[in-house]
């Protein structure tokens, strides 16, 4: 299996997904060798053999690279300018991808395997190279497409990498029907080759005793509306601010918290200030683990106004913590959830109406929270791993 990030070194849902899936696969007696492009500390997991691409014949390998899943070409240039010379591994993001591919060849020769499973476009080339060496079936797992990340203005190179990977693969896994539709429509992949495997959630992590954060704010009667995600065009933070303004016209006690970081951060801060709601929008920065669970619990409501969301694990995390959610209809999670509010991301009035209803009605809040937290129980990684196993068996046969 080729990936690029893994907890605790993840910057988004992708690492969480790879962790959940591989753990469930190993419980199902599937032996997974997980390849990462760069050496990371503290990443040893009992259930998984992890290989780092740049050190051969050694169990733990490391490679110094700038590859990370949510990088785009402009950001990469920025990194190149600011990173110390000796830490640079390649010349550009695309060289990194190429290099990962070359290393994959060697790894494919050394590591015994029956199928190759590559996560996300950065590892597609590695998957293709591995397949060229071993001749084993290739599955590419699409957690997001360039159309999602760029909100409809794809980078041509990234698009090409994705497209090549999908066409070279024997099977494409999409994390939702929403994503499958994009793959079929924009990448010209035959519908029958694309199989939807919805992500799951590891409930134990979220069902522990997490005390809600921000007790001082809550006791003041403030109602907390939470956004968790990268502050980038795909996630719709600008719509979140517009909705906040509309809600505040009707309920000045609402407080909007944005947790995450990203390329639109300053723009969003300015936007809130210009609208005169700067004091009602709080930026919590990137938060993870226990702290994030406390934040979910502190919130009266979680809102995910993504413009295009392949899945949306944070929505499940909020529900697992018993927090009612409003998600955009342009999201994968909206397909699998019943007890969630859904709106079009652009429909500010509809979203504001729903948020106001939840923060002002205990009955609605409690029903959504209670039934929603039960709703996520059937969304397990075991179920996702089961579907993957079926795909493996089909391909090996």
């Amino acid at each position, binding site marked *: 299996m080729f990936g690029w990030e893994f907890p605790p070194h993840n910057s988004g849902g992708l690492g969480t997904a790879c962790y959940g899936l591989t753990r469930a696969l190993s419980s199902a007696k599937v032996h997974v060798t997980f390849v990462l492009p760069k050496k990371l500390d503290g990443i040893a997991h009992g259930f998984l053999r992890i290989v780092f691409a740049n050190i051969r014949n050694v169990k733990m390998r490391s490679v110094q690279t700038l590859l990370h899943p949510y990088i785009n070409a402009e950001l990469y240039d920025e990194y190149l300018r600011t990173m110390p010379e000796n830490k640079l591994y390649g010349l550009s993001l695309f060289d990194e991808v190429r290099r990962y591919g070359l290393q994959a060849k060697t790894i494919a020769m050394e590591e015994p395997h029956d199928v190759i499973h590559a996560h996300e476009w950065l590892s597609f080339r590695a998957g293709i190279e591995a397949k060229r060496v071993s001749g084993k079936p290739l599955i590419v797992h699409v957690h997001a497409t360039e159309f999602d990340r760029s909100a409809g203005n794809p980078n041509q190179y990234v698009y090409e990498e994705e497209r090549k990977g999908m066409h070279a693969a024997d099977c494409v896994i999409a994390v939702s029907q929403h994503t499958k539709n994009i793959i079929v429509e924009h990448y010209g992949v035959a519908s029958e080759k694309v199989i939807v495997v919805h992500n799951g959630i590891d409930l134990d992590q979220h069902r522990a005793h997490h005390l809600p954060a921000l007790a001082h704010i809550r006791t003041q009667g403030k109602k907390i509306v939470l956004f968790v995600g990268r502050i980038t065009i795909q996630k719709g933070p600008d719509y979140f601010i517009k909705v906040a303004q509309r809600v505040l016209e*009707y309920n000045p006690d609402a407080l909007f918290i944005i947790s995450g970081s990203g390329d639109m951060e300053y723009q969003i801060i300015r936007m809130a200030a210009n609208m005169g709601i700067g004091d009602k929008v709080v930026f919590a920065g990137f938060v993870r683990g226990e702290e994030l669970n406390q934040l979910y619990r502190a919130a009266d409501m979680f809102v995910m106004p993504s413009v295009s969301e392949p899945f949306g694990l944070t929505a499940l995390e909020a529900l697992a913590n018993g927090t009612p959610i409003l998600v955009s209809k342009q999201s994968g999670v909206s397909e699998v959830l*019943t*007890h969630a*509010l859904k709106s079009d991301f652009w429909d500010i*009035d*509809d979203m*504001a*109406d*729903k948020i*106001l*209803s939840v923060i002002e*009605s*205990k*009955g*609605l809040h*409690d*029903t*959504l929270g*209670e*039934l929603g937290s039960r*709703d996520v129980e059937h969304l397990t990684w075991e179920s996702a791993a089961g579907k993957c196993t079926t795909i493996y068996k089909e391909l090996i046969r």
Partner: protein
Amino acid sequence: MPSICFYFQVHQPYRIKKYRIFDVGHDHEYFNDKSDTDINNEKILHKVAKKCYLPTNALLLELLNKHPEFKISFSFSGVLLDQLEEFSPETLTSFQKLVKTGRVEILDETYYHSLAFLYSKDEFVRQVELHRAKVKKLFGVTPTVFRHTELVYNNELAKMVEGMGYKAILAEGWDNILGWRSPNFVYQSPSTTTIKTLLKNYRLSDDIAFRFSSQSWSGWPLTSEKFAQWVNSVNGNGQVVNLFMDYETFGEHQWEHTGIFDFMRALPGELLKHPDNDFITPSEEAARYPVVGEFDAHDFVSWADVERDLSAWRSNAMQHEALHNIFSLETEVLASGDKKLIEDWRKLQTSDHFYYMCTKYFADGDVHKYFNPYDTPYEAFIAYNNVLHDLKWRLAEVAKNKPSTKKPSVPKALKTKVSLKKAVPKKPATKKVPKKKSPSKSKTD
């Protein structure tokens, strides 16, 4: 022996349009959706009239003419009658034609198809009176049998309705209460002395209403011969067979192509082939058959869902909150003297609104989903809750426009003096109470 009693419930609610918080204070028309969706009340009424009411009325008239022994009964909600008058007078005329045959009985219920009994006995009585007056006006008859919203029933209700002068009340013949006993006899609540309880034979009723077109059911396809045989087999171990169902069964729940009309067309003839069978109306049933045992309903029983309880309208926190909120406005709304406001408040009591908020089985896509014009129970609640905000806004406006000296004293005085005291003497004052009450009614109107 069995006397067959057909009773059809005819009801359509005033569904609330998509109403947002931003509409509060601007838009006071809650029920006037004109879209192509299923919350457009006029559209739905026309659809149901065309698929069910008009063809079924024609069929029943044909059967009444053909079989002098045939009899049926109806209960119309007041809100359905209002919508017929407004949107489809020809349907109302065809119902009136049926009643004129003299073999079609009409039952009473709450005008607004409400659950007021659970929250305000006074309001319950007022709505029954309004219904009685409406039936008298449109059909020229005064019902003597009562059926409560969705067949919600308990001992307390039976006692109350007895006090209002009714001779019989309908209920679900539910196994949890009957135990080994058969619903095919007349029963009585232990809390009453004169009123009789007529029990729905839910197996035979639901064979028609729910299972008729179900191909996975062992009884499918259901023919009138087969059904008549099942009814005949009651001979010797029952006196009545009460077939109670929604009128929309014909043509709307069971579509025409399922053969439901042909089934019904042939059924009276088939049933009459057995010399011991006959047809009766609920009031005749109460008059003719003696009470054989107690039907002791401490808890509420209804005809909804497999649970046969109140959970279809009152199980989640949203439903509890919405019901609590609407009824907590009673004193203030009635004191406003604003006729339109009072009527809107009552239309918002219709049980369907709370049914739409039900989350039971919501994920399974069962009947709750089929009968829900909203995408989700949450959308139903949000629209309802926003409308309540507007209702409160209107109440505040009324209070503002009243002379300022009155403002603080009026609601409190009403709460203690009028509504509570009114309620107390009414209940023991037995049979003629409904007529005595008309002065109080005109006040609230």
